[in-house]
């Protein structure tokens, strides 16, 4: 199952995936809304044999949140990506498809504020329990300089400074 | 490759030999820790060659080095201060310096007793 075959089958089945292979052993799809993303992920696991969940990269795309699920069949890394608006980041946990990605999905919830449904209960990772609600450190507008370590609270000055330290 | 198991205490022979061998450890403050010559320890600063370009300050990951020009633009009087606590001894400043006026010595005994002694004049 070389990357060229993966791309052909993916694009044949899901034209909106627009899968490309920028280098050897890598296939990147385009950002997709959650519903289409779940269909492509299930197809990749069941039909294309990408059964091993490697990890998830969350990115801040300005107005939206991008979640790139990286799965592999032992050789090629397939990156399937979904995009949700920041205002309403509702996504479904893929614990059923890839149990080993549970920790990374919790990370999305903590660091990016993904509203993930069907996530199995468990400790919040990687932030402590006392972390103030609604603070998502890896978003661009969150500036670490304004986080007060002693009171564990985020106190931006009134102007809401730019995220440059 | 299933091998026949010996009696426990296979290491006993080695242990007895070691009793008479020289120990591999040294009594630290007295012995010689043999730090190699090109070790990355405290920095050495060659003031005349410095052109105050501050490339080292820009590239320092932990903002540990500070270059100061006490004189004027024409006859510069360059001084460099290194905060020994913040410095991670990565020597990126040594590589970034276009005039090669910074270099690393292998002096690693940099513990200080109080906070204000941390800033070392190079």
């Amino acid at each position: 199952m070389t990357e060229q075959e993966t791309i052909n089958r993916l694009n044949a089945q899901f034209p909106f995936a627009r899968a490309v292979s920028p280098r050897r052993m890598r296939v990147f799809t385009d950002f997709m809304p959650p519903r289409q993303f779940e269909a492509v992920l299930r197809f990749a696991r069941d039909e294309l044999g990408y059964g091993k969940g490697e990890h998830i990269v969350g990115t801040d795309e300005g107005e939206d949140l991008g979640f790139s699920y990286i799965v592999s069949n032992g050789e090629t890394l397939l990156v399937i990506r979904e995009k949700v608006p920041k205002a309403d980041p509702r996504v479904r946990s893929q614990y059923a498809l890839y149990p080993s990605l549970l920790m990374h999905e919790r990370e999305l919830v903590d660091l990016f504020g993904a509203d993930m449904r069907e996530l199995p209960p468990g400790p919040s990772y990687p932030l402590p329990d006392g972390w103030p609600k609604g603070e998502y450190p890896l978003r661009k507008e969150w500036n670490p300089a304004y986080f007060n370590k002693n009171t564990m609270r985020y106190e931006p000055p009134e102007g809401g400074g730019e995220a440059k330290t | 490759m299933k091998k026949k198991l010996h009696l426990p205490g296979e290491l006993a022979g080695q242990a007895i030999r070691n009793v008479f061998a020289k120990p591999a450890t040294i009594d630290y403050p007295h012995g010689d820790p043999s730090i190699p010559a090109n070790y990355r320890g405290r920095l050495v600063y060659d003031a005349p060659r410095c052109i105050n370009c501050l490339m080292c300050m820009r590239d320092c990951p932990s903002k540990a080095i500070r270059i100061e020009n006490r004189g004027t633009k024409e006859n510069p009087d360059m001084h460099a201060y290194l905060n020994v606590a913040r410095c991670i001894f990565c020597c990126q400043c040594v590589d970034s310096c276009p005039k090669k006026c910074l270099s690393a010595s292998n002096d690693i005994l940099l513990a200080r007793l109080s906070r204000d002694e941390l800033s070392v004049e190079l």
Partner: protein
Amino acid sequence: MSERDGKFVLPIGPQHPSLKEPCSFKITLDGEVVEKAVVEIGYNHRGLEKACESRTFVQDLYIIERVCGICSHAHTSAFCRCVEEMCGLLVPRRAEYIRGIVGELERLHSHLLWLGVAAHEIGFDTLFMYTWRDRERVLDMLAAIGGNRINYGVNTFGGVRRDLEPELIAEIGRVMDALEEKLKYYFELALVEPALIGRLSGIGILRPEDVRRFSAVGPVARAAGIMDDTRIIEPYGVFREIAVNGVTDDHCDVYGRTIVRVKEMLESVRLIRVMLRELPDGPISVKAPRRVPAGEILIRVEAPRGEDIHYVRSTGGDMPDRVRVRAPTEANWHGMSYMLEGFHLADVPIIIAAIDPCYSCTDRAVRLTDAGGSSLHAWEELRRLGIERYQSLGIDPSGIRLREFPRG
């Protein structure tokens, strides 16, 4: 101490003598046998990814190098490869060889460290001392090459920062010969010493189908017969020219992982000798631009603990837009509670040590487990007594202010 219907819940960690690193386990014991294990990790979250976004690529190299103390070269190699591929730099062959040599030296000292820690976990301190004594020779070589024993910082964008002089090459050759003889002795020991075998075999079992289910990587997967060595699957740098013969075993337990790691060390010694012999001449680095062209890249490198994936995205400036490091240990955690259940309490430390956990790679923040109100009060009273005692001895520590954690 909490006891639910006759069963102990034994907390191990986050501070525990067997785990020199911050991780906590709630082990439910039925007598001596582990019934249920809850794994909680993440006491070492330092926010590396956010820090990388607010610094330049050059400065990030030294943050990435400090993700983990023992596999710092693997991380910097991956990060440098990301930037080099985005900038389209062609690293000179000599630099690739030096990177390979330092990488294999790092695998040696990381596995020797593991062998020592594993021996300590099963109470075999003599082997612990011997393996760490041999590791010192490898660390001396890394200090001679890179200038520092642990963060040898040999990598930079476009190649390496230090060259190998002929007498250093000869010195490394001598160290390799001495080390190979010792490694053969440990390998022989691991095959015949019944006390060692008795404590290591048959515990922490992870069969091939479990490895796939929990997506374990590195020696944990190879002990179950699954070859996932990135140097073979996706050869990079020097491994495009030098073939690596992969090591697998079929014991599927802690003993199998020990055998895999010792064999890998012997393989590393062979690789280092080949690389030293065929070290090409030429420059050791090319000039790297300060601004990295826009793009995103995903690079895999074989760290001592398994496959280490780096994702870097740049928007054309000299600061990265997103850096994500997936260290191998992160993948091995999911199978941990499965591996612990059903074995003795005495096996718990060695099973945990068997995946060679590197907590700083899987990062997190401090977590206050169910600290009941009363014990917190006792803690403050204990601290007051402590301060009074020191004041009676003429030292006044009351100025030191503990960080107030929010209760509950």
